[in-house]
């Protein structure tokens, strides 16, 4: 079973994402900001990360840049999942090492399509 870390400061979004990804046979962990996500990754590097952008403490982009410098941090497939839906943000995320990008709002079909795109399904 592949392990996906869901990083979002909204518990509602984390719950929705968890339900969708569990249906797609992922094992889920959650983190509510970038710092907590980084700690989680140091303990156990996930196969995939669903990543919000705007979060307290450490935002999604800062987290991604830090993650890619960690030991084993190049391995997780990172899928951004954010309301930031303009070309400038998307381009920055991709340059920082994201693998795919979901513009909120999302549903099961989109998550499934994007995880497929990213080679996770």
């Amino acid at each position, binding site marked *: 079973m592949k392990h996906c870390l869901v990083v979002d400061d909204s518990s509602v979004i984390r719950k929705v994402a968890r339900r969708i990804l569990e249906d797609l046979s992922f094992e889920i962990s959650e983190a509510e900001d970038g710092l907590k996500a980084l700690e989680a990754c140091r303990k156990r590097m996930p196969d995939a990360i669903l990543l919000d952008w705007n979060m307290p403490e450490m935002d999604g982009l800062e987290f991604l840049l830090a993650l890619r410098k960690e030991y084993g941090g190049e391995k997780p497939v990172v899928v951004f999942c954010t309301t930031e839906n303009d070309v400038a943000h*998307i381009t920055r995320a991709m340059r920082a090492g994201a693998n795919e990008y*979901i513009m909120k709002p999302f549903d099961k079909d989109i998550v499934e399509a994007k995880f497929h795109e990213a080679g996770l399904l």
Partner: protein
Amino acid sequence: MIASQFEYLKQFLKAKSGLVLTNEKQYLVESRLLPVARRHGHAGLAELIQAMQKPGAMQLCSDVVEAMTTNESFFFRDSTPFQHFREVMLPAMLKARADRRAIRIWCAAASTGQEPYSLAICLKEAAAKLAGYRVEIIGTDLSNEVLEKARNGIYSQFEVQRGLPIQMLLKYFTQKGDLWQINPELRSMVQWRKLNLLESFSTLGSFDIVYCRNVLIYFDQPTKVDVLQRIAKQMPADGYLVLGAAETVVGLTDAFRPVPELRGLYQPAQAAGTQGLVARSRFQVAG
């Protein structure tokens, strides 16, 4: 809706678009046609049906037909038909058409354009190999409304996230507020025509590759057979037909044969002349 009204609509739609309605689809008819009735100033389905039978009801009738079509489509739908395009059909055609240097592709139920544009993107990505070739993509559909959207190439955020990798979105689309428009360069690669598959399409010419996906499922068996056989007539023996995931030629017609190992892919069966020869020699052996 009373039985005779449903019966009338059933026969009307079968004749106009090939759509086969089963009795449990009555709710669908009501939910799709009530807005059409209102738009044309009719109180309900009874009035709508009356108006459809008066002379000069062309626009109303075609609105009814269009309202009953299912137009759902995605970019790179089912992914394998496009993988087959890149890895099998395109290389085969580049080789087979090395003299003529022209390849013609037809999307026979193109709907809102995702299918032809996915092929246009594949062609763009293979541009280096295609240098010197003229590749035409023709997208046709029965419905004016979907053709209009296809021509504009403007899609919602939801639509561009189902099947389209983000890198392709960045590369081939321009953001317009919450919407995304496919770039003029790709738009100019596809020609759009209104076409009802029940009517003759012999004037479209010959096609090396035909995508006819997720439309035959709405037809009855004789209509499927008829459309498939007429498509076969528009194709050279080495052409490729691509059907939808729930569709097949098997058990319908021997105008096409499945390509072994490649699901959803078909080629025209041997030319009629050769089949005749085989039949005759078998007959002689038997005789």
